[in-house]
């Protein structure tokens, strides 16, 4: 089966050069043609999107944009919709994630973009979302209005299907013309979303474009970097650094780089009844998206002294990972990924060989690995793809110095503890740089309106124009009705 990716308003498919990407998984194959635009086409497309956004998108009330997005999301949530069916059928082949992970992940994720959630999203960043539509009275006096970028460039990563929708929708809400660059690893969903938007509101569909260039192709990238006034980029830190170097100094550059998630389990959660259910949730978070998300846990810190010991808890998590391996089989690993898992596992096995306080659970051929360690160890990446290290700690406070040295890698942490402990540890972890505290079981599904990497998703995109009180007063003097 062959598909075309991208969304190129004003450009006919026949005018464009296409590159073919091959995907295969679960015994099926699919090819996706991605557009490779010339410099002239790129410049023309950027100008067109910028102009369409200026003359149309920026004139729409934000409530109308919310309503249109809501309709588009409703289609993608409808399991009978042809595009939704296509997504369920093809994304497992393209991403390698099992069909059920894709289906459940998509529904859970898309639900966070329905109208009520988008309103919450707006309210998180703007005390009065009306500032996106016109000047609103400011608390300090005067009036203020928020303007989104004229042209917002998104450079997406392909680690998690649908990631692109997050920033694409953010861009729409602040009325920015958007150019989105899809990742070769998942080039489809953003284009489908754009296509649905265009079917619902054709003029809105001309205010965004979905393009592709090969990751690291500096020449192609440069064309787009020069056009955008704001750039949102996802990826590894090296790739982001390279882009930042080439981005114009005048452009606002927002990055979402590499992160290491972790979990903290208090003795309060480690009794004979609660521990089993919790182990299942921990395993779920490590299983979902094969730990490819920035929010995925790679390490658990488990407090000693509960009815269930850290070692017993590690056994329970292992058992749950084994159960998930049947229900949601691990995706086929690339050679490099398999080597990463094997290197991590054999490194741990070597260290376990002459150390009684270290246990490697599961077999090398299992689709998961758990290492349990008795002595405190600092936060470190796991081998990914369902590999988890479970470290025993004397107290929850002991976790803080183990993660604090890695501030730039901190983002999500799950905590299972009493309310009092939760707030105390959250304060300490927040100081150390953690920006999101979640419950186990939800690590890979951030709530609607979350502040990704602790930043304001919408506020970071806009500039505020203020009419100072003095200008308002001065204008009074020039009014025709002045006495």
């Amino acid at each position, binding site marked *: 089966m062959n598909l075309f990716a991208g969304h190129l308003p004003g450009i006919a498919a026949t005018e464009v050069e296409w590159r073919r990407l091959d995907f295969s998984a679960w015994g099926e194959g699919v090819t996706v043609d991605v557009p490779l635009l010339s410099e002239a086409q790129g410049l023309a497309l950027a100008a067109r999107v910028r102009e369409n956004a200026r003359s149309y998108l920026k004139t729409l009330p934000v409530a109308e944009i919310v309503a249109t997005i809501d309709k588009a999301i409703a289609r993608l949530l409808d399991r009978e919709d042809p595009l939704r069916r296509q997504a369920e059928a093809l994304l497992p082949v393209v991403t390698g994630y099992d069909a059920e992970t894709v289906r459940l992940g998509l529904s859970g994720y898309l639900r966070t973009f329905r109208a009520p959630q988008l309103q919450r999203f707006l309210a998180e960043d703007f005390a009065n979302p009306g500032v996106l539509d016109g000047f609103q009275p400011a608390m300090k006096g005067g009036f203020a209005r928020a303007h989104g970028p004229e042209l917002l460039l998104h450079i997406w990563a392909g680690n998690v299907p649908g990631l692109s929708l997050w920033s694409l929708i953010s861009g729409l809400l602040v009325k920015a013309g958007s150019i989105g660059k899809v990742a070769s690893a998942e080039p489809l969903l953003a284009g489908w979303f754009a296509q649905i938007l265009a079917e619902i509101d054709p003029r809105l569909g001309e205010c965004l474009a979905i393009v592709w260039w090969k990751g690291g192709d500096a020449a192609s990238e440069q064309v787009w970097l020069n056009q955008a006034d704001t750039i949102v980029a996802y990826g590894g830190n090296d790739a982001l650094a390279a882009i930042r170097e080439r981005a114009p100094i005048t452009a606002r550059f927002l990055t979402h780089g590499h992160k290491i998630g972790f979990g903290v389990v208090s003795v309060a959660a480690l009794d004979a009844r609660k521990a089993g259910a919790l182990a299942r949730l921990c395993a779920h978070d490590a299983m979902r998206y094969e730990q490819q998300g920035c929010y995925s846990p790679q390490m658990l810190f488990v407090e000693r002294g509960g009815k269930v010991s850290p070692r017993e808890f590690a056994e329970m998590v292992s*058992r*749950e990972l084994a*159960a998930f391996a049947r*229900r949601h089989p691990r995706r086929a690993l690339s050679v490099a990924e398999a080597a990463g898992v094997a290197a991590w596992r054999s490194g741990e096995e070597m260290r376990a060989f002459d150390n009684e306080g270290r246990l490697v659970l599961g077999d090398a051929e299992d689709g998961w690995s758990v290492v349990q360690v008795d002595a405190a160890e600092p936060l470190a990446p796991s081998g990914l793809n369902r590999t988890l290290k479970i470290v025993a700690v004397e107290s929850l406070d002991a976790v803080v110095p183990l993660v604090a040295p890695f501030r730039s890698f901190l983002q999500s942490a799950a905590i299972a503890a009493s309310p009092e402990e939760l707030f105390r540890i959250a304060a300490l972890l927040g100081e150390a740089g953690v920006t999101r505290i979640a419950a186990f079981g939800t690590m890979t599904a951030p709530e609607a309106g979350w502040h990704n990497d602790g930043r304001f998703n919408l506020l970071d995109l806009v500039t505020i124009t203020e009419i100072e009180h003095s200008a308002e007063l001065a204008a009074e003097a020039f009014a025709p009705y002045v006495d």
Partner: protein
Amino acid sequence: MKFRDRTILVTGASRGIGAAIARAFAAEGGLVFVNYRRSEAEAQAVVEACRAAGGQALAIAADVTVPAEVEAMLARIGEEAGRLDAVVNNAFAPYVFDPEARARFWETPWSAYQAQVDGALKATYNVCQAALQLMRRRGRGAIVNIATDLVARPSIPYHDYTTAKAALVGFSRNLAAELGPLGIRVNCVAPGLVWPTGASRRTPEDVKEALIAQTPLGRIATAEDVTGPVLFLASDWSGFVTGQTLHVDGGLVMG
């Protein structure tokens, strides 16, 4: 290769659990008759998979609720293979397991019960009657009937379906008593919720999660989970076992 030179009939084998059972027999070297009613292309795909797994297979059409079609099917098996070592009665009347839209008792007409009784019990009756000749001739054979753990534990009361399967369990015990002296064993395999299959695709996540939470082995059955117990009951390894129901549900039902 536990089933080399053995002939097995699996009814309703074009998809789901039946297809998995057919492939498993083939992987053990058996000659598998893949019975189907209408899904010829799917049955043919199962045949291909059986051959790829190392066994022999033939697709054979018959509506198992129609005696004449069943007799013709068994006659053809007799001609083609000359023997029948095991029968797996897996076919059942079309049924959608939808806990939210299921018919409650006061919404369930007798015709719904009748349809399920025909699909589970009458079909098995037809196949057993017709197969008996081939098995009696050699004084050996194994019949495995697919029931459900819902008989023992109606987690969700699918009245018509489960009642028919309960009748099938009673039928199997009587048949075991009757055919034991002839060297033919009759047992049931009672899976829990098997997922994913066409019939169970409407089972919501929270129903699955609730079942998993109460299941000692901590997950939902797959079609492949059912195959091992079926092969066991069809093989000599269970030579002194008859009239039993083996639950395959991760320990949800015990005893």
